């Protein structure tokens, strides 16, 4: 009756996934506005920085990359005991008129993205905001979808998706951790 964890992505597949998303971002037609990446703290930030370097490797120029802390915009602040530790929001480019790709590790209820959108529009009026995530695990509670998805991963609510990144955790991997005692199918459960 122990907690099972299944590897979903390893370091090499995370890297391949980011290369693919970088290509998709560059190929996406639409507005001809300046591109800027914004990583949602904590793990969206290193992902955004990596995406920026991949884009530079393909297109030559590295897009500017900023960090966004969404804690000031959460909708559950009045119900959590300890307010989360606040990190800096630092967007080193003009938000007005930019094409911004928000980057996060896991898309789940959509509430983080809702908060991030509120945070971003407080800083200016982007021409367009898109969303890139490494894993989309479903269970949306708001009408939000991602434009670029690394891996679609059907999950149960009791399960946890753990993204570990070199910059934060010392290694690259994505795990699906099952609820205690629950039997999980093996890897490859994505769509």
């Amino acid at each position, binding site marked *: 009756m122990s907690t099972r964890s299944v590897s979903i992505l390893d370091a090499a597949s995370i890297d391949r996934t980011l290369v693919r998303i970088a290509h998709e971002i560059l190929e996406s037609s639409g507005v001809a506005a300046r591109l800027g990446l914004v990583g949602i703290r904590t793990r969206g930030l290193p992902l955004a920085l990596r995406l920026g370097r991949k884009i530079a490797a393909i297109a030559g120029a590295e897009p500017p990359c900023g960090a966004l802390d969404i804690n000031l915009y959460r909708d559950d602040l009045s119900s959590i*005991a300890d*307010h989360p530790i*606040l990190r800096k929001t630092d967007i080193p480019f003009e938000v007005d008129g930019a094409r911004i790709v928000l980057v996060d590790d896991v898309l789940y209820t959509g509430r983080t993205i809702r908060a991030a959108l509120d945070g971003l529009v407080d800083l200016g009026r982007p021409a367009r905001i898109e969303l890139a995530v490494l894993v989309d695990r479903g269970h949306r509670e708001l009408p939000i979808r991602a434009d670029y998805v690394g891996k679609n991963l059907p999950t149960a609510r009791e399960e946890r998706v753990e993204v570990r990144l070199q910059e934060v955790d010392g290694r690259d991997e994505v795990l699906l951790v099952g609820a205690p005692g629950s039997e999980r199918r093996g890897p490859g459960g994505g769509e």
Partner: protein
Amino acid sequence: MRLRSRHLLGIDGMSAAEIELILDTAESLAEIGRREIKKVPTLRGKTVVNFFVEPSTRTRSSFELAEKRLSADALNFSPAMSSFSKGETLRDTVRNLESMSPDFIVIRHTQAGAPHFLSRHCDCSIINAGDGSHEHPTQALLDAFTIRRHKGRFRSLRVAIVGDILNSRVARSNVFLLTCLGAEVTLCGPPTLLPKGLEGLDCRVTHRIDEALEGADVVMALRIQVERMRSGAFPSLREYAALYGISRERLRRAAPDAIVMHPGPMNRGVEITGDVADGERSVILEQVTNGIAVRMAVLYLLAGEVPREAAA
């Protein structure tokens, strides 16, 4: 990591980790003050009563701006407009304030211990905005925030605090905070304005200004209140200025990159000369700007729904 108490009554008793949590949070919130739209929705629906029994412009405006930038609703309550001047007791006034169900009461009071009294009788979070000559925790926090931005450290940092130490809550809170973080604090003033019993505090005390300023990294001048002069603490403002005023000449003894601070309001030409106050080493106006971010941090950290009394 969180604050152990749901009130901010004083620096005394806080841990270095708690102080650093407030300073780090303020560092993250400072960015909001540089935005075009200086407002975030974080404390929407929270009510803050600014209960200032003693007059204050700077601290009250700073709290008010901090509350507004976090979208809290601020209500100002001062003796002139309250029944406080009509003989109502502090407890009754506060019970009345409480019936308006605020989430915070920010209190400035002439009596030491008034915020502590409130914290025992109220359900909301109490923030001490200065109580008598006891403590002024948010001033010490904004001073520390300003020092950290310039010096990047506290350990072995030499801080000279000069002026009316006896009556200064700013000095007391600063001594608690700076020594807790490892700074070497020297208190300096005329012997009549140096309280007895400072030996218990972990700092140096001297009435010789040159000794206090020697090699100082931070020089903090305190306001001299004219009322004190009438009480005979020192003969004249001119004499005080001559003996203890921070002048360009005196500052030569301090470290070459020393910063000069003052909690305001300043008496130019008394505790600090005009050229020093406006000089390149002065960070006095930065202190005012930083005060808003630090007070936002305190509100943010105290606003979590801590189970009543469990954490007090």
